[in-house]
């Protein structure tokens, strides 16, 4: 998954560490499964628009909807750049052709 844009939230007290992430494609089920290996994944696939939240302690919370190209990233304010890079690297290493299992 390529990140196309990272925008701060406007009109929000946390705009330094709350980011809107825009990907080059819609978020797939496979990508959600892939990301689940890195932390605690909450995945509601029974919702009409499946919702996911990935929490990685002391790093970030990543939440979004399957089938949408944007998602939110709430970074640990103590290490914003470091965790942003970590998130970026995780996304880059996703292999769309590979099969992943959901880790919960």
């Amino acid at each position, binding site marked *: 998954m390529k990140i196309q844009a990272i925008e701060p*939230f406007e*009109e*929000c*007290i*946390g705009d330094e560490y*709350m980011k809107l992430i825009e990907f080059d494609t819609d978020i797939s089920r496979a990508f959600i499964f892939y990301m689940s290996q890195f932390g605690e994944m*909450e995945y*509601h696939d*029974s*919702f*009409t*628009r*499946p*919702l996911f*939240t990935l*929490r990685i302690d*002391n790093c970030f*919370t990543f*939440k*979004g*909807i399957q089938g*949408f190209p944007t*998602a*939110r990233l*709430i970074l*640990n304010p103590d290490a914003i750049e470091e965790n942003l890079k970590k998130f970026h690297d995780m996304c880059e290493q996703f292999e769309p052709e590979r099969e992943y299992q959901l880790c919960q």
Partner: protein
Amino acid sequence: MAIDRSQVISQLSQIKIKGDSNGMVPAFGVLVQQLPANFWNSFSEKILDAAGDALYDDAEGLLENAAAECGYHTGYGIITSEEFNSVVGPMIENKPEDILHGAYGVFTAWGWANAEITELVPGEKMVVRAYDYYESDVKNPKKPFAYMIRGVSRAFMDLAYSDPYPKGFGKFKCEQTKAIEKGDKYGEFVVTKA
């Protein structure tokens, strides 16, 4: 109306509430905290007691306004959040009325108040009924005590019908016409133009 209130509440209730190491919960596009209801009720009671009779109305106004300010910004966070888009988004047919109905589903699911809209005249008037709300736990208040629902309800009308966020605050007012804390079966809140 397209909003399936019971489904909204059921699905939103499945979403985990989990704070970070500072107790902050990132949800609905904002950071919220989970605190005991009696903390807020005691806070309001102490402010009103300290204000005394001479400043009682002023203190009430400040409490209600604090809720409205919070409701305006948090309300905007709610209706633009992933959670709302996921659960309520597919049901929205008529904007902004369905969004308003959905917002009260969130309000209920997250424990602020079991409240729903019973009358809505777009851009003019909204009547909200609350069957259970934490401010009704207050014993023998001098006057109706649901400052949170009053403030949040007028803020929701601002979000729906005033100028686009963040420039539309303060165009509506809300009166509490029934109160569980005063012996009524439910709380009732009437929002009209200010």
